[in-house]
């Protein structure tokens, strides 16, 4: 299936290669570089590139292209999904997935890639199994290893691979038994010029951090499970129980994992927590443009809107912007024409605003498009769909775990057209 993997950085250098079958010359990447040159933006490189003898499937994460070389028919999503899984694993191991981190840990990276694929077919992709095989590098362990000469390859054999619950390792022990669940919802919306909602959807996930001894069997139930329109589960969740009782019943993996992702359909009414008043205009014949933007809270259930960040791609004709924020700071990059305004928290008594003028290229005609405004924000302790966890029970073990639930709402792809 997957023949080879090349890692290419933003400046177009191959900095790592790994082959699972016979070696494929790195010149195969020339086709990829051609496509890279043609693309105006890094994201515009087509994910699947055919070459005379191979097919290149690439994903772009953290400004690194992961280019897989394929020789024959294979579902492209299979490869794409696997490459993303590789990136997730690197992130899990090194905290960040950057060129520097990969280069520093090249041996661990190689060991991981060796375990993840056998002859190009995925072998062990569960993070719990991998961590048993190859321990993630920490500063402490690196120091200890250099002194004692010990290794970060697990001495024990991964029994998880053989068990009926391959996602959980055996013999887990904690002194403090804890289970935390984060319900995180993201609002995707497009708001039109006049402030009415064109489309809005809620995508939610429940991320868990479970540190429990032994083999606990958990059930999680919701007050209003009907809200969940479409769900996808971690393999540990028993599908039958969800079908019958709308209860999540599972033996959790050890550590951090994504238990569930769900979708609240666009048919339901979605509360939009912020509004934007804007006035961006260019006058014909003048080299000045007006820019006014005011943000305000709306339907936030009394919670504060925090970490607000506004960004907008201004038209190419704009030379510079001379603006005055009532709070926070703004930057304008005259090369990429990207305006971003770090607002911080919205105070309902004193609404944040950004006002001023833009200078246009002399002689250029008035741009005929208006920029779209992208907004990011966070609201703590609120799940905007109204989803509530009812209770969490544990079976199979005798101790009493410490349980915690946190809610958060974020902006996903939240766009305002002007």
């Amino acid at each position, binding site marked *: 299936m997957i023949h080879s993997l090349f890692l290419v950085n933003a400046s177009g250098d191959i900095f790592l290669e790994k082959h699972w079958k016979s070696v494929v010359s790195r010149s195969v990447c020339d086709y990829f570089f051609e496509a890279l040159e043609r693309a105006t933006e890094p994201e515009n490189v087509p994910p699947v590139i055919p070459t005379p003898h191979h097919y290149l499937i690439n994903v772009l994460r953290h400004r690194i292209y992961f280019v897989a070389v394929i020789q024959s028919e294979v579902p492209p999503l*299979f490869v794409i999904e696997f490459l993303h899984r590789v990136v997730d694993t690197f992130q899990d191991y090194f905290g960040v997935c950057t060129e520097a981190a990969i280069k520093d840990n090249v041996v661990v990276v190689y060991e991981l890639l060796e375990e993840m694929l056998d002859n190009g077919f995925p*072998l062990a992709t569960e993070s719990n199994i991998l961590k048993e095989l190859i321990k993630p590098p920490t500063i402490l362990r690196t120091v200890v290893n250099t002194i004692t000469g010990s290794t970060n390859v697990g001495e024990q054999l991964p029994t998880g691979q053989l068990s009926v619950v391959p996602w959980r390792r055996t013999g887990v022990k904690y002194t403090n038994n804890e289970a935390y669940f984060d319900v995180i919802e993201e609002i995707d919306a497009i708001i039109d010029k006049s402030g009415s909602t064109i489309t809005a959807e809620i995508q939610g996930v429940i991320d868990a951090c479970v540190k429990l001894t032994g083999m606990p069997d958990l059930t999680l139930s919701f007050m209003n499970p009907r809200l969940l329109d479409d769900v996808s589960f971690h393999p540990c969740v028993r599908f039958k129980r969800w079908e019958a009782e709308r209860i999540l019943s599972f033996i959790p993996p050890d550590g951090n994992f994504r238990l569930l992702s769900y979708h609240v359909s666009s048919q339901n009414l979605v509360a939009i927590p912020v509004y934007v008043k804007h006035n961006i205009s260019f006058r014909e014949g003048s080299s000045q443009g007006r820019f006014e933007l005011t943000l305000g809270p709306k339907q936030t259930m009394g919670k504060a809107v925090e970490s607000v960040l506004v960004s907008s791609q201004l038209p190419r004709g704009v030379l510079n912007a001379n603006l005055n924020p009532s709070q926070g700071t703004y930057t304008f990059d005259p090369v990429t024409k990207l305006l971003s305004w770090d607002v911080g928290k919205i105070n309902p008594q004193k609404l944040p605003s950004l006002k001023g003028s833009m200078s246009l290229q002399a002689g250029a005609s008035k741009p005929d498009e208006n920029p779209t405004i992208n907004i990011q924000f966070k609201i703590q302790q609120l799940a905007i769909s109204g989803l509530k966890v009812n209770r969490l029970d544990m079976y199979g073990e005798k101790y009493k775990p410490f349980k915690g639930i946190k809610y958060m709402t974020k902006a996903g792809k939240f766009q305002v057209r002007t």
Partner: protein
Amino acid sequence: MRNALVSAENLQLTLKTDFSSEEQALTIKHSSGNEEKPIVFPSYLKEMLESNKESLKLEAMKRIVGLIAKGKNASELFPAVVKNVASKNIELKKLVYVYLVRYAEEQQDLALLSISTFQRALKDPNQLIRASALRVLSSIRVPIIVPIMMLAIKEAATDLSPYVRKTAAHAIQKLYSLDPDQKEHLIEVIEKLLKDKSTLVAGSVVMAFEEVCPDRIDLIHKNYRKLCNLLVDVEEWGQVVIIHMLTRYARTQFVSPWREDAMFDENNEKAFYDSEEERKVEQTRPYIMDPDHRLLLRNTKPLLQSRNTAVVMAVSQLYWHLAPKHELSIITKSLVRLLRSHREVQYVVLQNIATMSIQRKGMFEPFMKSFYVRSTDATHIKTLKLEILTNLANEANISTILREFQTYVKSQDKAFAAATIQAIGRCATNISEVTDTCLNGLVLLLSNRDETVVAESVVVIKKLLQTQPSQHSDIIKHMAKLFDNITVPMARASILWLMGEYCEHVPKIAPDVLRKMAKTFTNEEDIVKLQIVNLAAKLYLTNSKQTKLLTQYILNLGKYDQNYDIRDRTRFIRQLIVPNEKSGALSKYARRILMAPKPAPVLQSAFKDRDRFQLGTLSHTLNSQASGYLELSDWPAVAPDQSVRNVEVVEPAGAPALRKSKTAKSNEKRLLLIIMTKYILIHIVLSISTQFFVNCMCSLLHLCVFLACQFDAVSWHVHVSLQASSPVFVPETSHELLHRMTGKGLSAQYRFTRQPCIYGNSMVSLQLTLSNSSDQALENIHISEKSSTGQNIHRFNAIERLEPQASVTVSMGVDFNDSTQAANFQLCTKEDEFSVSIQPAVGELLLPITMSEADFTKEQGKLMGMNESSATITMKPENVSSQSVNRKVVSVANIGVIPSSQENIYRFAGKTVSSGSLVLVSVALKDPDAVITINTEKTVIGSMLLRQFKTALTNSGP
């Protein structure tokens, strides 16, 4: 034995010096050849590798792996590295494996040095070590070891551990790519592994099947139902492969569920009246889905909820290609959900949705808003979304879509704006109500400042006008006015063509345009020039009074143009339109030739014919056939024999391994010896000068290492723990659950599969065979929700319909809670309820485990006193052999055999299913008596087991 080892060690030491001198030479050559590489690396690293310190060796290996990762060539260090292949340090060993697999192909001779290490590891009692040895051995691409690999694969395919069998399945593909001549043998192994019941193996063996013999569909028949049932529990990557294979399989085995509903009713009636004509009835019978077809659809449905996007896509394409049309809608939501994922996933999913939305608009119409474009999307995502929105457009939603398109036209991304204009054009032709609105909108765009937008609008307007030219002469006039400002050649050419084609609607303007063009002819692009000539010819025919001179002038310019296409066209046109004596006949028809009414172009989706490829495949994404693409066959007109999928005989899993291994082993030894001898001979013949000595030594070393490893026992130090293993023996006897008389035609039998239950860790897994011996179909067979006793029962999915004389096999799980109390429950059909009960034999409440002999005695020591029960019996002489004792014991209870070093003592170990308590059984033979000892915390189970063993071992017979 020891001596052999020591001498091997010595040889290695002597060899080392020789190698190094050779390498030094290489180093020098290397460093002079390529200056950008560190000059020191080989000799410096080699010293580190040859030091006695593990840490230095490890450090060296880490650096070498770093070099490999960068794509540098480190093959010169091969001899120094390969010596460490048997290192005790696990990390060092793993890195050596990485190196070995990378360079073995280039250094075939030296790679053979390592083979014996893996051979030894293949016999290791620990399954993970066996698996890893097979994995590396099969990754070494050296043709000379093909026979060794083949033997190793054959043996591993019958290994007790499913993990080793999985590795064997992977090795099949590797061997096949190394030596395709082994195909026939490999197919035998695949056939064997396909019968495997472990979820670990299923995905990998199907992958091997797809790679080696995808056309041997006959191998699937018997395993079809099992694969369907296992699917949910297979790991996610295996699921994708199995689903794709089953899609292909189903298209060859079942009849199409896509018949017209109208035909359906008609046939029904006919069947009612013509009941005498058997054959005809058979043919026109209303469509009933094959239960196996339904099974596949039902078992894949839950996988739509998978977190793995490839699995969701695989199920979606399965439904698209196999499900009745009215069931398709369930995949919509899941596909729309995938759009939230990464850019690359979106790209592939949108492509598939685009193909689907052409054929079935209704599926995605409610989700139209999910395809609205965001300014942050990548261009290829935007264009795909546009494509889908255009496909979804109909009379009801067109106004919403057009409003959305208006925003897109203003986008800063001009390529996208141009694509939007084309989309508007497509909407306008497809939906006649909005044609005028679209045209007006496009005309407005003609005054846009951006050139690409204007050009695209002109091209689209041209196409639209062709459909109804008479009403739009004002638009043509408007375009003529704009003509001077438009510079894009394609747009200019389009306007000129329009002028010529409809010159009768604009009789005054057209000649004037021609006049202007005559002035600028020489500066125009080629396509524009062609259209000028075209316009001139048409005007000459319709309005020769005003344009005769202009045409002559233009034809003269064209005659001497640099481009031969234009010269040819000019010559052709001149002959055609200007009458002279030579071309008399043709010029009469000139008007009919040039002014013939042209059919309007059809604006189609680019995804129109993509459905010739199976959805979700690479070929579909590229819209061209990728190598290795397997065509999806059409539905057969008549369903092939269904009974091929019936499974009657259940083979005991893994049992044959015990008997075979001995012969295989000796075979293998002989083979290896032959290879070694050959190897030495070749070297002796080939090597002349000083090389001779080194090579001889090398070969001798091989032999020594090889001999040593054959005798050496365990050298891999590992932590051994209790490991579940697969059952040694699975009884085929089934017990009656419900007799057909009491069950009013429904009969049920159950048997214990002795496999770990997939529904829960503490459950015993059971297989239920339900058959219908009545003469009418039974519907909705299920187990009632209320259980009369306390056991936790995992019910099987309700069976919707069981035809007369048909039978179906389902699996269920019961948590007996380590007691032999019967599980009582209600087996229900649509009409009746039957109380039934399952009484487990005590031996079925156990699961086999493996452990070493030492561990066994240790554990046994802990379970003395109260926990021990024993009995002395007198053995029948025919039962005394080791085989018969083993067979008797494992047939009574589901426990694993522990290898024993003492001849007269047999040991077995298992654990109880619910609580996981150890159950240790030992049988000590003291002719003619035998002492059975059972050690377990569960004393009740212990004593019951003891009683059963007593009867089993004292009775003669099988």
